[in-house]
């Protein structure tokens, strides 16, 4: 006998994530979920973003790492509220789940914020898979990772609304062909807003910051 069920395995996950989104929306806060490989430059991108616009965009940060509070410490100089989640005590999972985000949101002063950046655990696989209640995912990819990454990790690039190609200052030292990389990004998701930046030198960061501001403005309508 066959019994039809048709139930999502992650139903409980999705419900929690939806509740996170409702909480954010009620507070008028826009949430970015930053995903990318370890060392792709997610934290430095946030540092540059805050240097340019922390006073204006009133950010809060949820930092996800398996261990250490190093990233949160780097961001402390901006005086923005930061909640560090270490997944280590929970078994070293590879992504932030919506229940962890809920707990972190409760520790942030949402009434004082316009935007929350969730810096996910560094990897291009599982963080792409899980909706945690964010308004949009942004994938950060550095040119040292090679042209092929969008093709190897298509879900990350399908789920994202924007891609930040980072470390452009290193291009003279690499064999990477930037046009091929951009072509590969477009092959997976031609609708992505793509930003070419060097978070180290600050080149191209202004366009990214404008994008962030634009999203917040649109989100507030």
């Amino acid at each position, binding site marked *: *006998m*066959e*019994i*039809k*069920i*048709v*139930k*999502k*395995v*992650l*139903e*409980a*996950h999705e419900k929690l994530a939806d509740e996170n989104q409702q909480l954010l929306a009620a507070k008028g806060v826009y949430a970015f979920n930053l995903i990318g490989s370890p060392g792709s430059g997610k934290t430095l991108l946030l540092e540059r973003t805050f240097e340019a616009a922390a006073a204006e965009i009133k950010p809060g940060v949820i930092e996800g790492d398996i261990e250490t509070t190093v990233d949160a410490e780097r961001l402390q100089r901006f005086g923005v509220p930061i909640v560090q989640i270490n997944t280590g005590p929970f078994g070293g*999972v*590879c*992504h932030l*789940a919506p229940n962890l985000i809920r707990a972190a949101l409760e520790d942030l002063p949402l009434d004082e914020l316009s935007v929350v950046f969730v810096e996910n655990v560094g990897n291009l*696989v*599982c963080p*792409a*898979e899980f909706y945690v209640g964010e308004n949009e995912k942004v994938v950060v990819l550095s040119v040292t990772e090679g042209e092929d990454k969008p*093709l190897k990790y*298509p*879900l990350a690039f*399908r789920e994202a609304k924007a891609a930040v190609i980072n470390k452009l200052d290193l291009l003279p030292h690499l064999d990477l062909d930037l046009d091929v990389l951009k072509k590969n990004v*477009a*092959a*997976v*998701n*031609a*609708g992505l807003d793509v930003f070419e930046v060097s978070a180290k030198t600050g080149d191209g960061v202004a366009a990214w910051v404008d994008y962030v501001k634009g999203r917040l403005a649109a989100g507030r309508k």
Partner: protein
Amino acid sequence: MHELPVVHSLVEQLRAEAERLGVNGKVAVVHLKLGALTTFVPEAMTFYFEALTKGTDLESARLDVEEVPVAGTCRRCGEGVTIEGLPFVCAACGSPDLEITSGRELVIDSLEVRDDGAG
């Protein structure tokens, strides 16, 4: 490795469903639909499923994973599209402006239950 917590959720849900349906210990096959765009690996899922159901009411149940293709509709020409490889474009008109409606599934589709002559 990220299949483990997912299979854990699956097994918990199956227990609740079996309880609700009164078919504890009788589930022979679990049909799972898995979208081709997800990052979950079927072999890893069946491996964890066996490990997590061992010694439980679901021990004799087999996990059958059916892959669901990535598919949708082209917003430009209205044709149905199935994406079997890159690039993500409409095969008919070449547009990348697609409404993808399947390929992200992780769904318990159905259960095959042994009758055991009891009913």
